């Protein structure tokens, strides 16, 4: 495993011209971070404008490609916005299938984060385990939807494909395996005394700041805010199954880890209940057959693995929207890093910035400068500092 660590440095380009603007410019004085400047725009592709030129059944494909990791969250919110504007109800079987696909995606996204966080901390075994278990989730997704990611399952009015009876036994078998592995991984992570020391009290986002920055998702729930769109704005099958919302009070990186890992276990619970209910509903009734475009405004929300995804659509009765608005959760969460990372040491900066679960490519453009503007560390260096700190504390590998 030490060999693996030395050879593979998968995160971040080495940028020779350090004067260039980065996404996240950390300002460092001595060993402490004293400021953070965030620049965006490198990922801006103009989705909203593109959606205005597409018909309502094409839009879920467009919004799917906003993010590859939470790729089903955007179509979920999208079809809800269109259905809200058109005031149509979807058949219950479609609601259960949507919930199952959404929760599968949540498990894979949280495991992805857990793996990357493990890597940043120097626990490469966690990285390999988490991504290995993630593969079984991707396999089930391929069985149900036809693709490992970018499922293309959603359409306004219902879903595109049914979960047939023959798919359910392998699904349940994988869920049983997954439950065991997730419990083991969760206990191993939460049990490790070095991780406690390493992550507790690091990158604290207080409740007051969380409200001021309007954060949401696991970032907000780790700071004591009891917000979860699945409970607050009931949609699909979330109101018809029993599950718990996980909220912690401390606001540090350890709390964010707790929230994400425990949520995975709740997700398997939800999927199992939905599969049980599917048996009682006749196969094939998965589409409400929306026939004309909505006339009016509609808002759809969904709890993506990172937070609330918000879609707003305004239609005029034709098959093309007049205005389409998309807001991904990271736009609200990433800004809170400005306060969360202040005062932490440079070695903790990597894990603090990664704790809000930004999109992976954002991590490539993080760099640290001193107060006079001199370049100090690129992302690779920050990860190495973090891994070295864990090793000094006696953990890692």
């Amino acid at each position, binding site marked *: 495993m030490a060999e693996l660590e030395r050879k593979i440095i998968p995160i971040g380009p080495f940028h020779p011209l350090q004067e260039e603007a980065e996404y996240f410019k950390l300002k460092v004085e001595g060993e402490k971070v004293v400021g953070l400047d965030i620049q965006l725009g490198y990922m801006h592709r103009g989705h909203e404008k593109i959606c205005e030129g597409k018909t309502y059944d094409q839009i879920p494909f467009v919004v799917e490609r906003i993010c590859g990791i939470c790729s089903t969250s955007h179509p979920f919110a999208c079809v809800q916005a269109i259905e809200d504007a058109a005031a149509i109800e979807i058949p219950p079987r479609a609601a259960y299938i949507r919930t199952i696909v959404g929760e599968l995606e949540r498990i894979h996204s949280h495991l992805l984060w857990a793996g990357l966080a493990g890597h940043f901390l120097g626990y490469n075994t966690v990285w390999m385990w988490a991504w290995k278990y993630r593969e079984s989730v991707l396999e089930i997704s391929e069985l149900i939807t036809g693709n490992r990611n970018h499922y293309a399952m959603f359409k306004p009015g219902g879903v595109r494909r049914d979960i047939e009876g023959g798919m359910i036994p392998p699904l349940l078998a994988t869920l049983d395996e997954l439950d065991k592995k997730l419990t083991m991984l969760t206990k191993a992570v939460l049990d490790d005394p070095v991780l406690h020391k390493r992550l507790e009290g690091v990158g604290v986002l207080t409740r007051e700041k969380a409200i001021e920055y309007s954060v949401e998702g696991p970032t907000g729930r780790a700071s004591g805010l009891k917000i979860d*769109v699945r*409970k607050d704005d009931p949609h699909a099958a979330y109101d018809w199954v*029993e599950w718990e919302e996980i909220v912690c009070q401390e606001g540090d990186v350890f709390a964010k880890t707790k929230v994400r890992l425990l949520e995975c276990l*709740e997700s398997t619970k939800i999927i199992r209940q939905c599969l049980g209910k599917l048996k009682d509903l006749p196969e094939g009734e998965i589409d409400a057959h929306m026939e004309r475009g909505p006339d009016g405004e509609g808002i759809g929300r969904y709890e993506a693995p990172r937070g609330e995804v918000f879609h707003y659509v305004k239609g005029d009765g034709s098959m093309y929207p007049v205005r389409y608005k998309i807001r991904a959760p990271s736009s609200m969460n990433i*800004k809170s890093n400005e306060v969360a990372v202040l005062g932490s040491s440079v070695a903790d900066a990597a894990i603090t910035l990664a704790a809000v679960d930004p999109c992976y490519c954002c991590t490539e453009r993080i760099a640290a400068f001193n107060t006079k503007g001199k370049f100090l560390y690129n992302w690779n260096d920050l990860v190495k500092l973090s891994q070295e700190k864990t090793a000094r504390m006696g953990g890692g590998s």
Partner: protein
Amino acid sequence: MADEVIKTQNLEKNGAYIGGKGFCLQRDSEIEFKNIEGQCREFYPEGELNLVRKRRWYWEIAAEVLVKVADFCFNTLGCRFSTATGEDTPRGFTILYHFSIDRLGLLISVRVILPHDDPQVDSLTVLGQGFEWIEREIHEMLGIGFRGLGDTRHLLLPDDSPEDYHPYRRSFG
């Protein structure tokens, strides 16, 4: 499964709180909804409050009272600010501020309409940092001026974009 983990790890001691079992009664409470509707109408009776659906309200107000109304939503009602939508419509430049009352799942979308020839409105960054980025985005995409917005750098567009490059305007392209 999660409860097992929480028990064996003694996470209740560490502060993991599990809440929201099953249905949330408050969320469906008619009284709460009526109460909030009453508060809104009483606070600003000149506004046009449209209860389009149970959890989707649209409130059209004059641009001059935006900060007052937003402060009412954000602080008095305890809403969370979700996002803002800017649009170029025949009536003018419209900005919809979406405020969410999470415990009820209610979204109040506050609408202001600004004239095409001089679109200016007060910035809401006085209320909190969560408003800054979306105002910068609307500023560069539609060319709307936000009075009091300190940072007007480009958020999403390239830094060398020309002054009058506003992709969301109907006149663009």
